[in-house]
């Protein structure tokens, strides 16, 4: 029983950074912008969160700084693609390269420094329920935050006027513009939100999941988060489910290593990447479903005078 709980908990922990990043990208894409720089924004968040916390500040200040750092580098992307009409695919790639380089540069003095893990916040009463208590209610604060954000993003998109406007901008920016909505400003806001959440995802890695800083420590999670958004057909709760599934793959890899399976560790480490491709293929093969769910204006440039 306790072992089952331990495995399931580790699955949840592995899912959290993906969930943060994918939720942010979901909002960005819903507004019609494809930001491929998730990996770079996560690294910016990871190194900032770690640097602030390791410099003796409260870990939550680190978390906030990480979100700000993610949003700051996302702002570069926003200015380039929304104001200067740069190609979104290329700009996203540039953001990833820039994020990898900058985080390695900034993080150099922090390599090898140990850090206390983000403390657990057991919820009174609920945390003491057998099985479900340790599984769901004895986590650190960021796990609860991730679930609340999933709920928040879901409610925002389906129940609020602002969410409807974001979706309208993503579905048809010319119509939204004609109705008088500031298309570029709304998109810029969504890009910043996406950056902030990717920053949180990075911070979860460097402050809670493996409390340390290592160059390139996201190891492709930003790209997996991008695939998750497609997998979830742009729906927040499915992002949560998908993130847990990928958490499961990551854990399967670690546990198989622990069991001394005769498979070389390099092959086990391929699992999350292969699984991402498999899942992407499974979901994309239904082209109609993707077309019906994808924001219609995704990746398209918008200039109010054109």
């Amino acid at each position, binding site marked *: 029983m306790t072992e089952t709980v331990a495995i399931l908990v580790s699955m949840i922990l592995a899912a959290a950074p993906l969930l943060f990043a994918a939720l942010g990208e979901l909002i960005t894409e819903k507004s019609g912008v494809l930001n491929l720089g998730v990996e770079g924004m996560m690294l910016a968040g990871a190194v900032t969160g770690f640097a602030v916390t390791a410099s003796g500040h409260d870990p939550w200040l680190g978390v906030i700084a990480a979100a700000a750092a993610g949003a700051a580098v996302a702002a570069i992307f926003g200015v380039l693609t929304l104001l200067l009409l740069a190609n979104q695919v*290329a700009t996203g*790639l540039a953001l990833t390269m820039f994020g990898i380089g900058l985080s390695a540069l900034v993080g150099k003095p922090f390599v090898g420094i140990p850090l206390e893990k983000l403390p657990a916040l057991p919820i009174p009463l609920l945390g003491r329920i057998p099985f479900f208590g340790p599984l769901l209610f004895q986590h650190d604060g960021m796990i609860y935050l991730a679930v609340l954000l999933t709920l928040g993003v879901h409610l925002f998109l389906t129940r609020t006027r602002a969410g409807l406007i974001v979706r309208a901008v993503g579905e048809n920016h010319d119509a939204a513009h004609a109705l008088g909505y500031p298309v570029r400003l709304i998109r810029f806001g969504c890009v910043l939100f996406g950056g902030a959440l990717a920053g949180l995802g990075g911070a979860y890695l460097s402050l809670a999941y493996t409390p340390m800083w290592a*160059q390139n420590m996201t190891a492709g999670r930003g*790209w997996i988060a991008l695939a998750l958004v497609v997998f979830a057909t742009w729906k927040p709760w499915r992002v949560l489910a998908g993130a847990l599934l990928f958490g499961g793959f990551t854990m399967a890899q670690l546990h198989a290593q622990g069991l001394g399976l005769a498979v070389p560790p*390099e092959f086990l480490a391929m699992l999350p990447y292969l699984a991402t491709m498999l899942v*992407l293929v499974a979901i994309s*093969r239904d082209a109609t479903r993707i077309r019906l769910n994808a924001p219609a204006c995704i990746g398209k440039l918008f*200039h109010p005078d054109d």
Partner: protein
Amino acid sequence: MLRLEARPTPSTAALLLSPVLAIALTLLTGMALFAVLGFDPVKTVAAYFIKPLDSAYGLSELAVKATPLLLCAIGLALGFRANIWNIGAEGQLIMGAVAGSGVALFLRPEHGAAWVLPAMFAAGALGGMAWASIPAVLKLRFNASEILTSLMLTYVADLFLRWLVNGPWRDPDGYNFPQSPMFEPDAIIPPLLEGTRLGFGAVLALAVALGGWFLLSRTFLGFQIKVIGLTAAAAGYAGFNSARITWMSLLLSGGLAGIAGLNEVAGPIGQLTPFVSPGYGFTAIIVAFLGRLHPFGILLASLMLALTYLGGEAAQISLGLPVAVTSVFQGLLLFFLLACEVLIRYRLRPQRAASRRESRG
């Protein structure tokens, strides 16, 4: 306030000047960055961009580093023109190196066997093509984004390479270092000039650039690539086979990346190691854009980005600057480049002047 006004036709001057402007802005930002890091900006830029080129050996090293960039970028640019976003050239490069190394390690040649190197080049190209054919199948058969699949395959290729050099292909006499035995002399590309590491690959890369130019500007296939990239709908009405173009561009870019990888292991490195490439496959994306997706532009751009690698190494040794500075430089360059591209199709106008004109009209 300035506003963007669409030009009636794209500006040729801006087309040619935008890369130059981007390089200048990158240098200025780089100098500011050095100042923040506590280095003398002028001295650092000199160490980074001028010092590596003050000897004949330095110039030959520039060509050594430009070779894989040029090979990869030409292939990628053909795809980018057709809106095929293969960003996994790094993985295809690795698989080319692996396949070519396999030939070198296991088809032990009799001394003087002249077919070994050609066989290795063929294996390198096939290895890269095989790896690039996976995203092609997944895109055409299952509609999966080649951006994500080609990138995921890069991680898989890297892990596969690590497994090989840590396991079955590890040199038994290599003191447990994760690397293959050194290749036989027949399986190593001889240098073109004595005392340098510059080999036949550089000539091949130049030929590929020329071939890329011919393909794009003088053949029907090149025309189809350009039309599909500009307006996929028009290409569809004209009856162009977009699946064929997808296959072509992925196989070409994969094959060229594979050759680039083989050229590294059989050339400057001489064995299979986990460090086949310092990210050439990713940097080639910047090279392609800096060269404005034109083969001759890409040739110049490959030299420019080769210089960032050389400069990064030199500055690391002489000034103790972290290697990561190179990636920052490269990322900045791509940012500025994309920002400056706006000037090709739009011009900046002062907001007030523009509105006055509108009210008059």
